[in-house]
């Protein structure tokens, strides 16, 4: 079971790590100073979550790897993040579509994990959930503003969401071992979170005058380490320095 817990902590940490890295790609070139600051701040919150989850993952694994080691010295197929978070930023509309879907998912998840019977998971979730609530609010506001905005911003939001519908099942995926941990109250039963996610998404899309979620072929599975090529490019940039100087400290 500790293997399952380790992998589940990697999922939590990797989702935050990879999306945090993606958001930081906007730094210095976002549409406005406010957005520049907000995306970097969101990225920082996610990096903080990643540090806490990956450090704990390293302790559970018990092979002497800490969060930095796990972040910088694993290859693509060892990452357990969802396919959604590794997708390229696209334009600002696409970035906000991804953020809204992820933060809405993460908010529901963390609201359950604060009740985890594993005290470390519970305290990390309790620490992070307030920040995630803020992320989910901000992303929803942007989706509404852009969806119910100009013809151009509306079209971009439609296109942005179109790309991401295929990754929703992957984000919520759980295997039998994880379901067993959920039954013990250690993890959250993600299937039980799906109806609330779907209805929140539907409500915001309706307010944004955007078309409802489309039933499309679902691709997977990031949770099993099968990723799109985009992750490799992201990791190459993120890990390059640490791998070139593996013993460096600062």
């Amino acid at each position, binding site marked *: 079971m500790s293997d399952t817990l380790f992998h589940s902590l990697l999922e939590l940490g990797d989702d935050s790590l990879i999306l945090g890295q993606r958001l930081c790609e906007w730094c210095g070139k976002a549409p406005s100073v406010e957005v520049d600051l907000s995306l970097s701040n969101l990225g920082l919150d996610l990096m*903080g*979550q990643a540090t806490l989850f990956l450090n704990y993952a390293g302790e559970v694994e018990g092979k002497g790897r800490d969060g930095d080691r796990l972040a910088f010295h694993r290859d693509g197929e060892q990452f357990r993040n969802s396919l959604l978070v590794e997708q390229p930023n696209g334009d600002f509309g696409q970035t906000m579509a991804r953020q809204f879907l992820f933060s809405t998912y993460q908010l529901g998840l963390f609201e359950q994990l604060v009740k985890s019977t594993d*005290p470390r998971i*519970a*305290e990390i979730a309790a620490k*992070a959930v307030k*920040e995630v609530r803020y992320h989910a*609010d901000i992303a929803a506001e942007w989706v509404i503003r852009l969806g119910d905005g100009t013809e151009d911003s509306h079209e971009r939001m439609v296109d942005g969401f179109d790309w991401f519908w295929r990754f929703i099942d992957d984000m919520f995926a759980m295997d039998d071992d994880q379901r067993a941990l959920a039954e013990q109250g250690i993890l959250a039963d993600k299937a039980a979170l799906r109806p609330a996610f779907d209805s929140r998404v539907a409500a915001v899309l309706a307010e944004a005058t955007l078309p409802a979620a489309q039933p499309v072929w679902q691709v997977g599975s990031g949770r099993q380490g099968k990723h799109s090529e985009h992750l490799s490019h992201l990791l190459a940039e993120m890990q390059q320095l640490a791998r070139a100087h593996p013993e460096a400290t600062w």
Partner: protein
Amino acid sequence: MSAGAALSQAALRARIDTVLAEVPDPEIPAVSVVDLGIVRGVDADGRNVIVTPTYTGCPATIAIELAIRVALDEAGLADIGIKTVLSPPWTTDMISDAGRDKLRAYGIAPPPKGAEGRSLHGPDIVECPQCGSTLTKEVSRFGSTPCKALWQCLDCHEPFDRFKCH
């Protein structure tokens, strides 16, 4: 015998408190790490200072720990450790009244108390730290650091930072 052990428990605690009260927050140097509630105190056996991060991803967390370490070392308290705890999570309610006054004097609108659960959104009325007017508006939800939003006073027209409720 170490410096720490040479002092009685009560004297040691008082000494640690005095030392830490002088450690400024690296991003808002007008307030100390004690004012902000980052330092929770000393653990039961008096061997460790208990600290808690503000925001999960606050980049100042490492700098704060380092500053506390240096201050303890310089005060001859090198054998006192630093322990980080997450629970219960830090909230802006942990900022002391003295800390709130110092923030205001520094030009930052302090967060109202009892804002817990409002997830960084405070009440709509925010007092300008310069002139005291409540005729103010939000300019940007994100300010110079993760913990602040940018506001402006519509009376004296001064822009100011507002500490977000957390």
